[in-house]
């Protein structure tokens, strides 16, 4: 199957998953899905570890794992249900692809730093990848992690920011102006790249670019990407889709 088809199939499955289970958070899932799919299908090798710090994009993670053959349709049926392993935010420990429970923001980057440091101490192969939200940079612990990563030169770590510009109750620029993130983070000693988080060729170049320092890829993304009535709208952080909205979303993604 062509990669483009893999992406489309995954997006449609994500919409179905959230519609069937009547749950929200679809906006941030659609902004992060392209990057996670790209990681799982094009980047991750044996011994690499991926950690989703923005745990509210659990649906996109589960769909990515489904797309990579790590989860089945039966597994997905359990999403958000009683007696399930697929909670609304990832619960770690039951499969190697989900190393930690995330959902409370500001933990993932430190955890990834610890894994990267442990790998270095044990001379283990493999890189560590971590995907954060942009709102997550308001957490002080994320900056603590950044200082630690830079100081200890954890060059086996790549972290990504899903910079969709929207957070829980407004635009990131209206709540806590941290932009330009690249300009602020680079002086710590981090290699920073800034690309579209929905463009495969830009992601390909960014992941392949040589680096001797810890690497940050800022993914400029759109919340609700690919669905016109969701794009850039905060309410899709929370709302489930109506039947009419679901039909419209499927139509738009199918025709893209």
């Amino acid at each position, binding site marked *: 199957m062509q990669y483009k088809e893999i992406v489309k199939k995954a997006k449609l499955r994500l919409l179905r998953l959230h519609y069937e289970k009547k749950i929200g958070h679809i906006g941030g899932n659609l902004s992060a899905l392209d990057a996670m799919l790209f990681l799982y299908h094009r980047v991750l090798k044996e011994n690499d570890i991926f950690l989703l710090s923005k745990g509210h994009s659990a649906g996109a993670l589960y769909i990515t794992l489904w797309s990579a053959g790590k989860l089945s349709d039966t597994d997905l049926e359990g999403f958000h249900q009683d007696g399930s392993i697929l909670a609304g935010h990832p619960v770690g420990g039951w499969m190697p692809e989900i190393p930690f429970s995330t959902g409370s923001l500001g933990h993932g980057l430190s955890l990834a730093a610890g894994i990267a440091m442990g790998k270095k101490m044990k001379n283990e192969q493999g890189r560590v990848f971590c995907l954060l939200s942009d709102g997550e940079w308001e957490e002080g612990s994320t900056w603590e992690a950044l*200082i630690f990563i830079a100081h200890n030169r954890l060059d086996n770590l790549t972290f990504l920011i899903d910079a969709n510009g929207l957070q829980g109750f407004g635009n990131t620029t209206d709540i806590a102006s941290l932009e330009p993130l690249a300009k602020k983070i680079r002086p710590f000693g981090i290699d920073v790249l800034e690309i579209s988080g929905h463009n495969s060729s830009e992601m390909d170049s960014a992941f392949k670019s040589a680096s001797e320092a810890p690497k940050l890829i800022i993914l400029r993304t759109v919340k609700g990407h690919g669905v016109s009535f969701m794009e850039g709208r905060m309410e899709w952080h929370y709302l489930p889709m109506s039947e009419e909205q679901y039909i419209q979303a499927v139509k738009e993604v199918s025709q893209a």
Partner: protein
Amino acid sequence: MRNSLCDSLVKLHKTHDFVFLTGDLGFMALEKLRDAMGGRFINAGVAEQNMISVAAGISYTGLQTWAYSIAPFIYARPFEQIRNDVCMHNLDVKLIGNGGGYGYGAMGATHHALEDYGILLTLQNMHVFIPAFAEDVPIIISRMAGLHRPAYLRLGKCEKPKGFELPEYDGWRKLVQGNNVVILTVGPGAGPVMGAILGIMPETRPELWVLTELPLNDTLPTDFLESIERCKHLIVVEEHVLQGSVGQMIAHRLLTAGIKLDRFDHAYAKGYPSGYYGSQAFHRRECGLDATTILRCITRG
């Protein structure tokens, strides 16, 4: 006890692979360990939240990790990191908090740890060790290293009376044989009480126990139960607030088991009742945790 801690960890490092993180503390205490461990010793800086999550991440790769700071900075500041990153995943991370209770005395309230083991024991998989004497530290370090799950070490000051021969280490130890009253102390609080009761005549001397490991088992030790059923008067002494205290845990176990006592007294940390600050001894007096007040409790009718 910090010297004993350092020596024990240096010794452990010779036979056991682990990582040690400090939150920028350990001056005049951990230099030997730093020099012995080389790259396995990391000063994680003044960033305790990051330090605990990093410890969890390192532990995830299979390396046991110890993290050290002044007690409140290791359990209170990074509480969510302990909860979500360490305990939820039952990871092999050890937390060392120096200065349990009022240990940091006149340094002020921010440096006191009055609710540490109570709050930590609300978390899944957590174990707590509270050495009573410097001699306990090497044994406890060895036990902690062999326990591949989360654990907290509450370090205090050794106040063992000179010349006293300690019985063999156990989580529950009878330190002084006695009659009429059983005093159960938690960790280093045993020292001052022991110093006060050793001068009492054997026939009226209270029996003294010390508890150094938590959580409690569902059933209390048989020897301890025999003692309290014989004496019918139990006094629990601990430098910890009432909520989450050993006193509450013991009362729960006794009620559950249907064991009735004539009298139950509980001396615990009451914060700062006068609003003044001072040494550990000052705060103990303020809270009735000093030996004089405890002995008065024995004679009170």
